[in-house]
């Protein structure tokens, strides 16, 4: 093997390893810069001057401006509570108690592009949701319109859910707002 061929091979392999390892840290389950609880994940340093390069990479790769961590907690899920990818051909129930906060919004987005259409059927907020008597929330996520709280998934394939909690009561800027239970996403039925 000639030296030139070896040199080019090393460069190609190094580029592959460098990019793959970065993608693994950003999108994989390394847990180095993102936190998770059940099906929900979040980037604790996003939305501050102390943002780490991997969190910045995650948000900017989607051309997405993170909200300030001192006033908003953003958690997202692309799987149900069993770890299966959210599929637009299935019906899901989002249920549980949202951490105490001033208000919150829940929206679906396309898993691949992270885009979220403007159509109001793809999102709900604490202003227009119907609460259970015990303060919990149940939302059905389904392509077909449902009675009660309903969100339509984005697209026809895999999708994600984004929960934004504005002005959480517990500890602005920390993980304490998420120390309690988060609602679960459970699959009901698939076509």
């Amino acid at each position, binding site marked *: 093997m000639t030296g030139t061929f070896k040199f080019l091979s090393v460069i190609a*392999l*190094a580029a592959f390893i460098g990019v793959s*390892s970065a993608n693994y840290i950003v999108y994989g389950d390394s847990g180095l810069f993102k936190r998770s609880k059940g099906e929900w994940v979040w980037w604790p340093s996003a939305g501050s001057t102390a943002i780490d390069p991997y969190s910045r990479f995650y948000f900017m790769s989607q051309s997405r401006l993170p909200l300030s961590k001192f006033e908003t907690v953003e958690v997202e899920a692309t799987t149900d509570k069993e770890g299966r990818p959210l599929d637009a051909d299935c019906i899901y129930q989002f249920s549980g108690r949202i951490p105490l906060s001033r208000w919150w919004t829940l929206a679906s987005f396309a898993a691949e592009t992270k885009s979220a259409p403007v159509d109001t059927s793809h999102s709900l907020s604490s202003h227009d949701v119907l609460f259970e008597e015990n303060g919990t929330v149940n939302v059905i996520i389904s392509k077909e319109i449902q009675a009660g709280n309903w969100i339509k998934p984005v697209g026809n394939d895999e999708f994600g859910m*984004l929960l934004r909690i504005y002005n959480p009561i517990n500890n602005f800027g920390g993980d304490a707002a998420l120390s309690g239970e988060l609602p679960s996403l459970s699959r009901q039925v698939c076509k």
Partner: protein
Amino acid sequence: MTGRSFWLVSLLLLSAACHLAFVLFGPNFNSQNLYQNLIAVTGTNKLQTLSAEQANRLSSSSDNKLVHAVCAYDLSRGPIQLTARFPESYWSVNIYSLQGDVIYTLNDRQANADSLSIVISSSGDSPPIAESETAQPAGLGEINVLSDDVKGLAVLRSALINEKERKRVAEALSRSQCQVKGS
């Protein structure tokens, strides 16, 4: 060092360099794109209230339960004055560096006011001060924010209780201004 060790060490060092370059410089392309796309809609040093479609197109996953107004600032012609007026519902001001880092934030409860004035200056134009001092408490007149970057974004967000309010909230936000200070 044997030939095999040399190539192995080279591979490790080059992999680390590629990893760092990808993570550190990759987002710059997207943030520059985001800034340029916003400028195409809002212009520079002007505040523009975005429609829901514009907000969604320019920044993915933007919350459509909010009305957004954006000023893409450029401090090369001097400090920028952001005079913001808000509706009665929840609002927040976020100032971003060109890389998309939040460098200043304030919301209605912290400000306890329905209007405020923020001056954004380049940190290169001022003596260095501690980061904690870059943002003065609200309610004390003009708020001074130092930016390490010459370019960045100021984003005003205000909550919608329901979709019918969008026009009213957008009109309230559109009374805000962003311009070179003293112009």
